[in-house]
């Protein structure tokens, strides 16, 4: 299985340099959403990498489906923090354990 990257502009370039073929560059938010849908439906993709700022801009509903998805596994990277995981832990355990 492969790793896929979807993101705006330069975020994708570096990953293609690491040999990832499924690095899709998107320019608008709508394109981002449709591309993510497409990648999620692709059976060959094992891990989907997103940029944290992009992820935060997605519709809330999509954010939660992406976080819950196991196959492919979605991971968002960036210097900003993801609130999804934190909220989940807080709700399940009752205490904010993340940091």
């Amino acid at each position, binding site marked *: 299985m492969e*790793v896929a990257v979807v993101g705006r502009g330069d975020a994708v*370039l*570096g990953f293609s340099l690491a*040999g990832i073929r499924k690095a899709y560059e998107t320019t608008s938010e709508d394109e981002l959403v449709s591309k993510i849908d497409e990648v999620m439906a692709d059976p060959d993709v094992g891990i989907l990498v997103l940029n944290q700022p992009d992820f935060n801009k997605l519709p809330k509903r999509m954010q939660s489906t992406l976080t819950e998805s*196991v196959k492919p*596994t979605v*991971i968002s*990277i960036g*210097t900003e923090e993801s609130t999804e995981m934190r909220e989940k832990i807080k709700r399940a355990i009752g205490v904010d354990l993340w940091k």
Partner: protein
Amino acid sequence: MAVIPGTKPTRAVLIELKKRIRVAQTGHELLKMKRDGLMIEFFEVLGRARTIRQELVKEFIKSQQRLNMAKATEGTLTIKSVAFALQKEPTVELESRNIMGVVVPKITAESVQKLMFERGYGIIGTSAAIDEAAEAYESLVDKIITAAEVETALIRLVEDIESTKRRVNALEFKVIPDINDTVRYIGFALEEMERDNIVKLKMLKAKAQRAAAAKAAARAAAA
């Protein structure tokens, strides 16, 4: 008192309910143990996820800096063309692992890190900045793969902890008390029925005695 609606106060139902209490209590104990086990597992994974996240962010910043350097020296177009020339593609293997009934992914991948001449583009035509950027991104992808495994495991565990907790609480605070209340209600109802019966029998007996006495008196009068 919350009696389960629609129960009939009979002895058969009572016996049935007493059986159900036993089942519910064993289930409750087991689920409590499962919850505690999941918690222990969760804390372990949480620690790992946090360190990996931090490393990931560090790696990400480094990679971006390197990429910017490469862009500054070579230009975006060159980097794109170099990327096209790349041969090997990172592949991952997705398996599933089981932690106390929670299916978590186990991702195995051969290291993405490559030697310079393995990458597939010419060494002479490109600058060191591109090599450095490629190397940084390769190690970033390695980190991403580990992080993906750990973070998904964490999310799965959290979800399962939540549902297990709900079930434990539902059993402890709703199901078991409800059954207990219903058992008590049936017990009262049966007792009440018994008292009713005794009174009824006494009345019948008194009536029969009165009738017998009247008959005897009538016979005595006739004699």
